[in-house]
């Protein structure tokens, strides 16, 4: 997969980025006129890169993700992505009328994978998220962590070069979340997919990402960026992770304090 991306990138300028966000602003009509939610955001995600978007409430991080996913259009500026991105939500969003396996097969079917290949590909994806026996399981029979892993497999079934994740582990208990961090890091390394991961959890951002982008709130602007060069696999309680988290938290709190001053 990595090689095809590179081959394409040679003859196509746009493909050098999994996503390119250029001067994007977004406002919504509110009771007091148009309200600016995102203000002049520029951000690139390189092929195979793992970027986390970090911010407090009101920073418009979910709005930005919706724009990148193509679910909404920016008020100004442009977004180009390398193909249609896959999107994972905080809620698993699995269809309860289908089994875990059929949920994945639906994504394959909508992508145009021939019927004969779907079952085998689904079993591969289930093995990738370590849920080998779960093909025939109903969604309500799975635990929260298992549901998010099926949702991840379904997102990967779209075979997108960019995976958008909107606080996918926020609703899980801490133990499960910790395990899923390890899993996501492993799967990201195995598949070479680019990830744009939204969270309000500083340690989670540092634990996962190669690059952390901090957004300010109301309106959302890129406040600062950090490159994380701590080698993977990391743990959330590693000292370098904790140190960088403290530093980022200080800046984040500074950003939040500004809103209490006027």
């Amino acid at each position, binding site marked *: *997969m*990595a090689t095809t991306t590179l081959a394409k990138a040679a003859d196509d300028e746009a493909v050098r980025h999994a996503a390119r966000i250029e001067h994007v602003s977004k406002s919504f009509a509110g009771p007091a006129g148009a309200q600016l939610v995102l203000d002049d955001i520029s951000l690139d995600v390189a092929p*195979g*890169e793992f970027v986390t978007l970090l911010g407090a409430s009101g920073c418009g991080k979910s709005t930005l993700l919706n724009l990148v*996913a*193509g*679910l909404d259009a920016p008020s100004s500026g442009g977004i180009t992505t390398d193909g*249609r*991105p*896959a*999107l994972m*939500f905080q*809620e698993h*969003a699995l*269809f*309860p*009328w*289908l089994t875990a396996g059929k949920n994945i097969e*639906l*994504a394959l079917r*909508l*992508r145009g994978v021939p019927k004969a290949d779907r079952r085998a590909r689904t079993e*591969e*994806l289930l*093995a*990738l998220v*370590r*849920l080998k026996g779960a093909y025939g399981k*109903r*969604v*309500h*029979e*799975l*635990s*929260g*962590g*298992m549901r998010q892993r099926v949702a991840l497999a*379904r997102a990967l079934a*779209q075979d997108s070069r960019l995976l958008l994740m909107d606080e996918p582990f926020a609703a899980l208990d801490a*133990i*499960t979340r910790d*395990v899923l961090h*390890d*899993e996501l*890091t*492993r799967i*990201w*390394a*195995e*598949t*070479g997919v680019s990830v744009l991961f939204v969270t309000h959890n500083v340690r989670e951002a540092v634990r996962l990402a190669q690059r952390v982008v901090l957004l300010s709130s109301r309106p959302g602007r890129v406040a600062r960026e950090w490159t994380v060069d701590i080698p*993977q*696999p990391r743990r959330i309680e590693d000292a370098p992770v904790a140190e960088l988290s403290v530093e980022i938290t200080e800046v984040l709190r500074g950003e939040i304090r500004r809103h209490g001053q006027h």
Partner: protein
Amino acid sequence: MASTETSTGPTGGIAPGPAGAGDELAGVEAGLDALESTASGRPPLRRTLIDKVLPPVVAVALILVVWQALISFKVVDDPSKLPSPSAVWDEVHEAWLRGDLLGYIWTSVSRGLLGFLFALALGTPLGLLVARVKFVRAAIGPILSGLQSLPSVAWVPPAVIWLGLDNSMMYAVILLGAVPSIANGLVSGVDQVPPLFLRAGRTMGATGLKGTWHIVLPAALPGYVAGLKQGWAFSWRSLMAAEIIASFPDLGVGLGQLLENGRNASDMSMVFEAILLILVVGIAIDLLIFSPLERWVLRSRGLMVRS
């Protein structure tokens, strides 16, 4: 990024990194899955009998006891007002021996089910149209809801005038009774589809007709099935009204005609026989077809709480 070069495809299953780290993670994960999964299965037969079958049997027995008591203690001492349970039973038994009983039932049930199938074929596309096309909803949505509260007996006189005394009149009355219920059920089912499913579908490429087929319709199924259930109840009621009002020898004797014949002959046992049969058949169809359908839909989605 060095890590992509180590990619061996999804079947590898072992993380790059220190040897054994992947296996250890897999073990932790398997443990978590086992801890959090709940076993689900059907309750044993004995429980079902005690919880679900016994209570209605007791209730029916109680009603029979009270009924018999009213006769035995001469509270009501006039067989033309209240026949005894045994007299009604004899009436049913005689009809069975004459070979007429199944004929009565089949005449009505075949009409009812066929009419219901017509209503299904009409109400489903109509409901979809109202749910998905804004203009159609604004135009006929309120009329469709209003029609639900119009007793379908009201349609019998015009249906007789338009179509004459034959089976097509019966079907017309069933349609007018059941189509609004089925269409409205589908509309409310579609309205209750969580927006999250629509968003998830759209990111997967399910838009337009594909979205309707793969996401909207299956997501709306619980509301649709509730509409079908109500649609059947309305079909059956409309049909009985039509059979009672428009009884005509050439139409064959259904349960409604049986009731009307009983009234004409001032035969209270026959009237009670007809009422009981109408009730029993209505309940039986619901228990045999619609309740299992509804339970299957809800259970497969984890929407049914087992008490």
